[in-house]
């Protein structure tokens, strides 16, 4: 009897085993894929500005205060994408930007307006990101370098991470540091006189090293007879000062429903070092002699932002943004913007937009000849004055699935913006973005 029971039990187990879903051997192990060029993006912009009361002139009106600027900016970014053996997406992005600008105020670093009024800036970037699709997380590091001929260079480093939750929300954080060196190029009449006594023959002359607006250093030889000659062979180095900027940026994005999503943005920023610019003049009330602007060596910034995007019907999207900003220099500002992309077709959209901005002045700002020598800090830079600004413009976006003209040209974006400030500054910027895949 016992043998019969064991036999029946054994047969049942064999039948169950035959019909059971055993785990088959995994023959589809993930194969890594090396980095491969995925996307190339080219962005070109032209910026044009008319303004007066330049910071270089100490906020003066007229030709000496001319603050007209043009800037031609070009950048290219190459994105390589690959997958590692764990199935994580690796993205390596390298970029190179080049700007050429003209600035009327730059000529007045020399009091007579004869300094060069143009310059170039070169700025490469390199970023690496790892995305884990299963865990919904990502990690990235990046680096940045920028050099503006004669004026400064800057090195930037950052690291970031993000994590999605199960409720269509995502938290991200980014920590950045920028380390600038600013060449101490003073207005021509304020160049520190670093005299070296030399003896030539029977006369004692003094040689002063003069840093010109272009950054070139020349030696002016003053003879005892008061005659002045210039020799260009001198090569005294121009001193520089540091400016460090640190920021922690936090963002939380949330899908609210099938048509709406929002983001909450918070930055904590801290700057230390030389926070003014050495060629910005200030004129005191009782003096026609300029001094160099003087600002505190520390600044804490706290901007808080909020975005909300809403898809109305099938063709219209409303994108809103608001930011409140406060810092320890006494500046408060509000920024509100709205953009309404209208999808003419699924692949072509027109986006009119408007932005309003208002700020209070920093505690250290005063117009031309309004500061007094008793002030501890002083600047006449109108970017730090009280004003409001309006920005209005339109963007066009074309992204057909089969490409534009050629299948590799994936997206074309064109954007124009007109900007006016109550300081009388008016500017226009037009940008073109070409994306190849």
């Amino acid at each position: 009897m016992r043998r019969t029971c064991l036999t029946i039990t054994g047969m049942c187990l064999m039948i169950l085993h035959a019909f059971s879903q055993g785990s088959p051997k995994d023959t589809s192990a993930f194969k890594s894929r090396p980095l491969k060029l995925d996307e190339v993006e080219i962005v070109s912009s032209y910026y044009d500005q008319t303004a007066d009361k330049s910071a270089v002139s100490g906020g003066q009106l007229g030709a000496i205060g001319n603050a007209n600027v043009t800037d031609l900016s070009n950048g290219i970014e190459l994105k390589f994408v690959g997958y590692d053996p764990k199935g994580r997406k690796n993205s390596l992005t390298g970029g190179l930007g080049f700007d050429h600008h003209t600035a009327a105020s730059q000529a007045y670093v020399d009091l007579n307006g004869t300094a060069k009024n143009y310059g170039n800036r070169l700025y490469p970037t390199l970023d690496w990101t790892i995305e884990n699709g299963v865990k919904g997380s990502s990690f990235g590091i990046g680096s940045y370098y920028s050099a503006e001929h004669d004026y400064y260079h800057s090195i930037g480093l950052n690291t970031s991470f993000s994590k999605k939750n199960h409720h269509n929300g995502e938290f991200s954080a980014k920590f950045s540091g920028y380390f600038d060196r600013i060449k101490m190029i003073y207005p021509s009449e304020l160049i520190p006189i670093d005299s070296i006594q030399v003896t030539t023959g029977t006369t004692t002359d003094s040689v002063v090293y003069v840093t010109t607006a272009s950054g070139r250093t020349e030696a002016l030889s003053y003879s005892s007879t008061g005659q002045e000659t210039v020799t260009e062979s001198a090569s005294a180095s121009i001193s520089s000062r540091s400016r460090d900027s640190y920021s922690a940026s936090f963002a939380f994005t949330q899908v609210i429903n099938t048509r709406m999503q929002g983001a909450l943005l918070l930055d904590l920023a801290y700057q230390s070092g030389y926070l003014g610019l050495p060629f910005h003049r200030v004129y005191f009330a009782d003096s026609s002699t300029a001094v160099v602007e003087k600002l505190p060596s520390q600044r804490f910034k706290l901007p808080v932002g909020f975005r909300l995007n809403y898809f109305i019907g099938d063709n219209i999207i409303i994108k809103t943004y608001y930011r409140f900003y406060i810092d320890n220099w006494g500046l408060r500002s509000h920024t509100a913007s709205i953009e309404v992309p209208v999808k003419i077709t699924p692949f072509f959209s027109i986006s009119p937009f408007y932005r309003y901005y208002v700020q209070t002045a920093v505690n250290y700002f005063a117009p031309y000849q309004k500061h007094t020598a008793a002030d501890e800090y002083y600047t006449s830079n109108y970017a730090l004055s009280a004003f409001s600004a309006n920005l209005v413009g339109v963007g066009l976006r074309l992204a057909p699935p089969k490409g534009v003209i050629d299948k590799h040209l994936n997206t074309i974006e064109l954007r124009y913006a007109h900007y006016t400030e109550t300081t009388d500054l008016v500017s226009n910027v037009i940008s073109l973005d070409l994306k190849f895949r």
Partner: protein
Amino acid sequence: MQLTVGRVSLSVIALAACAIALAASLASCQPVKEYQKNRINDSEMTLSNRKVEKEEISMESYREGSSGANGGKTGGGCGCN
């Protein structure tokens, strides 16, 4: 310049309005499945700035006294001109 409306600071009004809008939005969160995200995933619905806006944002950060909380840089660079 102190921004005020009546006796109430504009900062307080703006922050209160934002807090209310945020609270109302989050309170109305609904579960959204992947297949329901065709509008959310539309390229125009992105919550970050696009590359074509780069010069605009750069110009604003140099011409205005404030920056940050927009995905751009919060420091570094000269802005000399």
